């Protein structure tokens, strides 16, 4: 009886050796590659372009833009600015685009949809006097897609715009207090005339 058991086990062992060979054959044939090239990826949630429109009655509408078409590629963003009028109150609004897609995707919509998880922060200097928020999320906290910017006397000034996602909300309006992760940070050197 025991011998028979032994015999059975030997057969099992033979079967497994055969399985091993089959495994080898199928293993090597299954790695023949297909000739289809991989599909290109255009990053979906990338922000390539921030455009800030500043308008006020009686003066020309101003556009400030930063455009970084290669994203995390080696080319630095291209910044275009125009001069602002002195002692003026502008209403500002921001548009974010992903221009790697055709047609360009409006990322501002996503920020609006998740406005309680996003906030723009503005840091001003020189002839740019103040920026105040002109919108609010569902909880009544500022978002910064729409804002009011005032200029002082003629001279040079700076405006830094930072978009954070998942900041602490509400916060005291400073980056340090808000925390979160930076989606955009861009500094504009401006002339007020």
């Amino acid at each position, binding site marked *: 009886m025991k*011998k028979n058991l*032994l*015999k059975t*086990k030997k057969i099992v*062992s*033979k079967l*497994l*050796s055969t399985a*091993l060979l089959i*495994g*080898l054959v199928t*293993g*090597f044939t*299954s*790695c023949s*590659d297909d000739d289809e*090239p*991989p*599909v*290109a*990826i*255009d*990053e*979906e*949630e990338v*922000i390539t*372009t*921030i455009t800030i429109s500043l308008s006020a009655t009686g003066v020309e509408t101003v556009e400030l833009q*930063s*455009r*970084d*078409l*290669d*994203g*995390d*590629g*080696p*080319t*630095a*963003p291209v910044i275009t600015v125009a001069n602002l009028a002195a002692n003026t109150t502008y209403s500002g609004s921001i548009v974010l685009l992903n221009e*790697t897609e055709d047609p360009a995707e409006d990322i501002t919509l*996503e920020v609006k*949809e*998740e406005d309680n*998880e996003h906030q723009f922060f503005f840091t001003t200097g020189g002839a740019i006097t103040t920026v105040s928020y002109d919108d609010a999320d569902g909880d009544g906290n500022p978002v910064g897609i729409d804002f009011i910017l005032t200029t002082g006397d003629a001279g040079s000034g*700076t405006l*830094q715009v*930072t978009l*954070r*996602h*998942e900041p602490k909300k509400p916060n005291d309006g400073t*980056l340090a207090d808000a*925390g979160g*992760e*930076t*989606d*955009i*940070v*861009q*500094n504009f050197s401006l002339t007020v005339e």
Partner: protein
Amino acid sequence: MKYSLLLAFVCFLGNTSLAQECNSILLGQVVDFHDNTPLDGATILITGKQNTSFTDFDGKFKFENLCNGVLELEIFHPDCKSKFFTIDMQGDLFQKISLEHHLEELDEVKVLGDVKKNTTSSQEERLSQEDIEKFSGSSLGDALKNITGVSSLNTGANIVKPVIQGLNGSRVLILNNNVRMQDMEWGEEHAPNIDINANQNISVIKGAAALEYGGDAIGGVIVLNPLPIARTDSLFGKTQVNLFSNGRGGNITSEIVKSYESGLYIKAQGSLKRLGDLEAPEYILSNTGIRENNLSLNIGKRDFIQGWEAYYSFFDSDIGILRASHIGNVDDLITAINSPQPRIIEDFTYDITNPNQEVTHHLGKLNYYRRFKGLGKLSLQYDFQLNRRFEYDNRIGEDAGKPSLDLQLTTHTFSPTLQIDAKENLHLKVGLLARFQTNFPNPATGVRRLIPDYDKSDFGVFVLGDYELSDNFKIDAGLRYDFSNINAEKYYRITRWNERNYDEDFGNLITDIVGTQYLTNPVFDFHNVSAMAGFQYELNENQLLRFNYALSQRAPNPAELFSDGLHHSAARIELGDLRIKSESSSKLSASYELASKTWGLVVAPYFNAIDGFILLEPVDAELTIRGAFPLWVYRQTDALLFGIDVSLYHNWTSQLKTDHQFSWVRGTDQTTNIPMINIPAANLNNRISYVHPTFHELTVSLESQYVFEQNRFPPNITVFSPEQQQDVLLEINTPPAAYHLLSLDIGAKFSLFKPEDLSVGLRGTNLLNTNYRDYLNRLRYFVDDLGRNLSIRLIYKY
């Protein structure tokens, strides 16, 4: 197999055959299976009869007055396994019978420590069974740190990559039950997909001497094998439960083994691990939980002549990455480095959210071996591995639940080896390797691929020899050649392609232009030669010397060649280089080993010169609309590493023992004469252990671990901060201060149903709840390392 079928057949006939004449003579000779040398002193019995004979000096024996018909002989020899042999007597007969005296194949239960080492002349160390049980709930990397000269490169506490004598990643091979792990070891935040509870016979070879496993082990090899299973009819198993205060969870691992006297065995093992957020001394490390499910199955039959094994293992883990370590840009990094506390501290939870990584690894192996008389053992092995890795970042909008990285690595390996051990003092091993690998980065992530689609083929051939010149002097040597071909299809941003000057050198690789990207088809061949030679000399019973030289060459891995893009979880841009060639290491290592009843000492210096050493280091920062990002670039240089590992023990009394370990390594970039990045700091471990054998084998040990400050590191980089509108020094390379940790372990054994079937252990690590950060932990910019952790372990054997 032929023999046993014959045996079964003959036994069946045996009962029916009738004796006729009883004057035949059986002459025989018993010889060694391997080298045909005659064996004297063997006893031969004829089953069912009173006749007994012994072999003489020539191995010969004689039986007279035998009847014709089938006889079964039983042959005993003190050094060999008993053998039954059947003959069919038809008149006088001469029969040669070979016996086997190499017992290692049969794996009678061996005492650990007596197990044969993988190499003769190189530095090699085995992890003790107690240490494996103490670290059952931890990672492989943490357990291996008990070995002098082994440290780890961490991304938090759950992602732990072993570092051997200063080197890690693709320079450290991991053999999981004789299968070389193909688990994307190139990434710094990729830990080995290994459950330490599956194969508990673990050793580390510090260097490339184990050429049979690969010629590219510039750092070393970690060998994990199953514990031997005895050839007895038996059913046994073990269950271990560990509970941890830090992480408020634990793990359970269980195994059951059924073995048969025939050599057949079946083993099943599984483990589950659940830990919530870990804690630093002063705060919760939010999103650092882990879930791990592992399973392994072995079925096989081991006999002297032949044997086989089928092995399957499944590894599945979901690991949270510290929430505060996911940052937006260089300004966030500066803020994190300067801030004493992480920016996100939430309440304790078991939930794992983004960022996290989910990794599965299937491994299947079929192995068959057969011995040939007077030659040796031929083994054939096929293994299959399927490794899938998802990495999740914080994404917004429709992409919120999508992984940012989704890689699938499929590997087939066929490796035949022939071990020639017919001669007593010369052992040879020759082998071949064929490996095919495909990487598929899933485009559904919507994120540009960090690692491209590629097919890789490897072919290798090696020969290893081991020669015993005299009883106390052994030499070994080996030679290996590897060919490797990588065929990738990768998109490059045109701006990046030009910025790297690839248009000049690799213009012919471009196959298509898609929007702002080139589709390229890089195909590279690598020819690598590795070799080693060394000796082991026993000065006397207690002391020995080893010396080894190893030349090893490693082809660049896909990350080193092709990395390209923003690594979101690390907030850095990583760039590979298509120009990278193989690196080549010349390592000299020596050791003096003393082991007596009272004293033990190992002094092991080494010297490793690596030509074309491939390293990744921060060089600059790049401006994007999201801010500035540190630019980490792979480059090649000539590196020199040297160091020393020292371990010492002393048995003060039969109950009191102290252990001391020290390791130190220094690495320098020879081209620039600048210290190398990520070289472990010197460390000193001291342990005092007390054993009380008569009271439940009570063991108490107190361990002190002192890690020095690394004062040799590459310079920091200066980057422009858009937030501050000025250049700032980014202290990305500055190492943290030295630290000292204390841990205590108490263990005892109890008898429930069988003698000492229950072991209980209590363990406390970082007892003083010290705040510290480690140079080789990538999360050191953000948070302190783990605080106090108290744990309980219960091991029940049945």
